[in-house]
């Protein structure tokens, strides 16, 4: 994954968006196909989400994004639906780990309300630590990712990353 | 209703059970149009059946057709799918009853029939025979009971009851 050129439309949500509204628990053992997962993404919060995210999206969200369950489908469904990165004022701990582990850039950043409006084109450079609003021209900076997290993201997630180590070792 | 029903044949074998006709995983559905989507879903001929959806159809089964559960989803799904009638060498009682109740004629064949999938069939209700238009052969069918006939003419059991049909039959 290229870390310097992440682009998508801004989709904005509030604080404490939890894993049950991102991916309802009732589907966790019956829905396995990633594209079907994507069709249920944010189902109980924003039923139009899959169509809005399809062309590529950057989520701008409030505090404690992804609180609740440890279910990784809550990351996978967003990724499959077209989410390229999540900018959150803060993340729930497990969600943050899961996002990085599945290769979805999760950026903790206290973005100001006037940074973007719904639908603005957002560009992110993880190497430089910059988020830019291409529609309006503003930009924000954040601490560049620690090297080991960048490696996981660049590899495309923890599976390919570990695979490289496991297979490389043996 | 028409006294001659015409449709393309769809042929099944003996002991077609209600789980095969309509699987238990869809029992929660209550709209026949939705039920139709799941008709014979697990059957080897399921995809062929979907190719001919939209045509007028007549189902031909063997012995003990519709055995198993009391689910009326089975005949409701058949009717909503486009089946005009079902014929079989014998029927399970509940299926047979359910079929008439939801206005799908279910008639017993009195002899083995020579019919292939896609043959054009004509069911002559008054004469009680089944005609295979491809071969020109006629097969004997057991005439309907008068009560079944009345229910069918009324368009099913509910219209029959609502139009006072019971008064003629009750003691």
């Amino acid at each position, binding site marked *: 994954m290229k870390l310097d050129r992440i682009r998508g439309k801004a989709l904005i949500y509030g604080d404490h968006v939890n894993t*049950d509204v991102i991916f309802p628990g009732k589907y966790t053992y019956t829905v396995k196909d990633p594209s079907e997962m994507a069709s249920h993404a944010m189902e109980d919060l924003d039923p139009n989400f899959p169509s809005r995210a399809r062309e590529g999206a950057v989520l701008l969200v409030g505090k404690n994004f992804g609180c609740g369950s440890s279910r990784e489908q809550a990351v996978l469904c967003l990724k499959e639906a077209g989410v390229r990165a999540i900018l959150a004022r803060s993340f729930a701990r*497990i969600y943050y780990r899961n996002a990085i582990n*599945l290769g979805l850039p999760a950026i903790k950043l206290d973005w100001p309300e006037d940074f973007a409006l719904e639908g603005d084109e957002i560009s992110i450079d993880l190497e430089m630590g910059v988020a830019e609003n291409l529609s309006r021209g503003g930009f924000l900076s954040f601490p560049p990712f620690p090297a080991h997290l960048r490696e996981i993201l660049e590899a495309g997630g*923890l599976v390919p990353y570990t695979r490289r180590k496991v297979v490389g070792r043996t | 209703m028409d006294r001659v029903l015409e449709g393309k044949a769809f042929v099944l074998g003996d002991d077609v059970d209600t789980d095969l006709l309509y699987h238990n995983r869809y029992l929660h559905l209550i709209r026949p149009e939705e039920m139709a989507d799941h008709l014979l879903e697990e059957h080897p001929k399921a995809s062929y059946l979907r190719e001919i959806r939209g045509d007028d159809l007549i189902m031909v089964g063997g012995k003990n057709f519709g055995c198993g559960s009391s689910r009326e989803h089975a005949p409701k799904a058949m009717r909503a799918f486009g089946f005009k009638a079902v014929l079989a060498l014998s029927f399970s009682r509940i299926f047979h009853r359910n079929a008439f109740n939801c206005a799908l004629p279910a008639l017993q064949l009195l002899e083995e029939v020579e019919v292939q999938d896609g043959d054009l069939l004509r069911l002559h209700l008054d004469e009680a025979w089944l005609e295979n238009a491809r071969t020109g052969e006629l097969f004997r069918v057991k005439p309907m009971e008068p009560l079944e006939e009345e229910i069918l003419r009324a368009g099913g059991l509910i219209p029959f009851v609502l139009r006072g049909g019971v008064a003629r039959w009750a003691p």
Partner: protein
Amino acid sequence: MGPMTFAEKVFSSKVGREVRAGEVVVAEPDLCVSHDNSAYIWRSFLEMGASKIAHPERIAIFLDHAVPAPTPEHAENHRTIRELVRSQGIELFFDVDSRGGVCHQVVCELALAGPGDLVVGADSHTTTAGALGAFAAGVGRTEMASIWATGHTWFLVPESLRVELKGSFVDEMVGAKDLALRIASELGPDGADYLSVEFDGEGLRGLSISDRMTLCNMGAEVGAKSCSCRPDERLREHLSSRGKGFEPLWSDEGASYVGRLTYRLEEIEPMVALPESPSDAVPVREAEGMPIDQVLIGSCTNGRVEDLEVAARLLSGRRVSCRVLVIPASWGVYREALRRGILEALVDAGCVVCPPGCGPCMGNHMGVLAEGEVCLSTSNRNFRGRMGNPKAKVLLSSPATAAASAIAGYLVDPRSKRR
């Protein structure tokens, strides 16, 4: 070498040098817990190119999320897990049989971990094992796969929050769940995000292991990485009666905390969490009268013998006025409750006693809600759609409040139904 928090001590002992909050370390967990999601973990494990689990003796797998299997999809998932268990020689496997139950409950019931142990679980409520004095944190399933493959993972040594408990609860109508909801209402859903929470104080010594599990379990609802209780005599008894040793590990006097909270247990009153967050909790008396369609007594939060016993004391000889599902957290709980006549009393009162498991807690099995229905549950989470239907509502409370409200058919303060 200055005073250290519990988390700092656990990770220092794991890596063999002194580490402090804020450092990233690589450590080997002592116990790795997963459940019906083990088939997914297995798939990621294979995708990683791994073939042999590094330490099968550290892996514990429990089937609990949908048992016995309600659909062919669940059945296939269980079968995959049985195959991997067999092929990898995993001995701590709890199948659909009468040894098992909800993973967090069985870990504590059988004391699969002890003081100072590092436990990871592919489930957010892994924090429950902190009742045993362990450091227990939830992880995602991909991460669990990498731990299966390598035996280790990275941890940020967390900062800590100290919660001091004083005094004791006034009566059995008030308990640990009310305290947990009170804490959630004050901290908010992220009040302990990434923190290690330490429960301590003379108030804690009066609490049963079951109460401590409830407290640690609910830590997940305030974002805690781990919640742990100071090891004491009561824990020593719990461990020794299960043939386990007891080597206490705890924070030092004067360790550094990001915050300190103190609760006087006498001041705690029955609490209820309103939809749609556990931290939207208020005293029951402020919400009394809300009509209820279903009551659920169970889950890893409140499905233990003590919980069922409180409910039975309120319900025996009375009739419930709504649907009441009782789902013991494990077969061990089920057997003990059966032996004590608790289950009979509950069934006589009109409850349905279901086989142990997670039940409808996350909308997978037994007791899913319809549109517009309201469920009062003793579980831990009431987000929108949690029990299957986004237009249903879930309230969270203690078993006492749940049982008292079951009698009334609407939310009541359990003290009004006290015998």
